[in-house]
């Protein structure tokens, strides 16, 4: 086995600047996306994910320019998500230099959109972002539901059934965020991650809750994720990507170190 587990820093981008929401409320500025992407690339990030959290549609074009600028100097895979509604949105970002497009809310409201997108551009560039929240009571077997609107609105859709469906519809990868853990820094919901990872054929990226390097390792070892995503622990210089990889390697996890 020689495929490396991936470490993916995530940059939340609002009107062209990197920010990180703590449970989508307390947002702090962490800099210029091109600068941050360049630094992560130098540190050995395996991919970079941009999440466009811009509210106004006027500023949407800003993201296209961010991607263009980053793609000119950073030669690792770039994923862009946030506000993807139409085939034209996907085409615009791919043409700007994105490699994968992450679809979230639009998939929930119109699952066929995932099918159309995968048919049109290939599964390799379609990531389905899944926001899941635990709905089972303590002591019960884990059960999670898909939520929208930053974790505020339940949909009644069972998370495991949903990821299986998205896999069947042509998602090339699942970006799984635990809405219970996002912003808490107490670690991934590894029970959720494991359940999702076992339910689908495609790779699963664990997201939501990373507060230290052991959390990243746990996402792989306990959560059985194929990749781990984090934002704030990297943005504020607490840990470098290199330190994260060294920590994971020390626990027998294969990482890319060249």
């Amino acid at each position: 086995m020689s495929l490396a587990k991936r470490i993916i820093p995530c940059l939340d981008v609002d009107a062209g600047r990197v920010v990180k929401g703590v449970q989508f409320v307390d947002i702090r500025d962490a800099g210029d996306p091109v600068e941050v992407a360049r630094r992560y690339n130098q540190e050995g990030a395996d991919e970079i994910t941009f999440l466009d959290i811009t509210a106004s549609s006027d500023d949407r074009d800003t993201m296209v320019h961010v991607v263009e600028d980053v793609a000119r100097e950073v030669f690792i895979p770039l994923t862009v998500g946030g506000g993807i509604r139409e085939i034209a949105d996907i085409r615009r970002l791919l043409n700007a230099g994105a490699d994968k497009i992450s679809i979230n809310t639009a998939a929930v409201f119109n699952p066929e959109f995932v099918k159309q997108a995968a048919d049109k551009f290939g599964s390799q560039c379609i990531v389905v972002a899944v926001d899941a929240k635990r709905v089972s009571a303590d002591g019960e077997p884990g059960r999670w539901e898909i939520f929208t609107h930053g974790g505020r609105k339940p949909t009644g859709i069972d998370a495991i059934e949903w990821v299986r469906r998205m896999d069947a519809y042509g998602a090339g990868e699942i970006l799984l965020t635990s809405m219970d853990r996002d912003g808490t820094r107490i670690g991934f919901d590894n029970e959720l991650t494991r359940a999702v990872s076992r339910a689908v054929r495609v790779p699963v990226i664990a997201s939501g809750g990373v507060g230290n390097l052991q959390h990243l390792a746990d996402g792989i070892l306990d959560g059985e994720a194929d990749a781990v995503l984090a934002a704030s622990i990297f943005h504020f210089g607490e840990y470098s990507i290199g330190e994260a990889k060294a920590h994971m390697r020390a626990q027998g996890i294969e990482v890319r170190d060249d």
Partner: protein
Amino acid sequence: MQTIAVVDYGMGNLRSVVNALELVTAGEARVILTSAPAEVLGADRVVFPGQGAAGDCMAAIDACGLREAVLEAAREKPFLGICMGMQVLIDYSEENGGTSCLGLFAGEVRYFGDSHRDLAGVRLKVPHMGWNRVTQTRPHPLWQSIADGSRFYFVHSFYLQIEDDDLAVGKTDYGFEFPCAIARDNLFALQCHPEKSATAGLQLLRNFVAWDGQA
């Protein structure tokens, strides 16, 4: 100034390929993204990328009238196939219920399967996505200054089986070993994405743009 044609037949994001070639040539070459057969034939070297499904790719190549130009370029000038641009050089792909391809190499492109496992029985995700090691199985000018076993970025669900194993220049292991780079004369093709493979990938592209096409 040399011209490098990146063949654009509407399959996938070619911006990164162009960006990477522009970076490694640093203004010393003209990099064109083209779907015009005459421009492909007029270029000094040709990059043939591709993403998506084999059936769609073959249909798009024919819809653009590019089949003959691609075949001729692949016979005559330094030619680099990437990802689907490698797979469609083979006789046949089992994707889309069976797709007849360009037939430059004897072999088949096959699906990893819905329950792909390694030898120890551990389930492997499909697509094979991420950074895997490329073992250089024989020397080649395009491997220059790239350490044997360097990691490249892969994303694919189908893999190559070639009849003549000597054509492999690189192999990778995902449950089993398969050829991830093949070469013959002026042609080099690989499954992984050099334009997304950081230092090693850029070095491979640098080697390609300096290559005289001799194996």
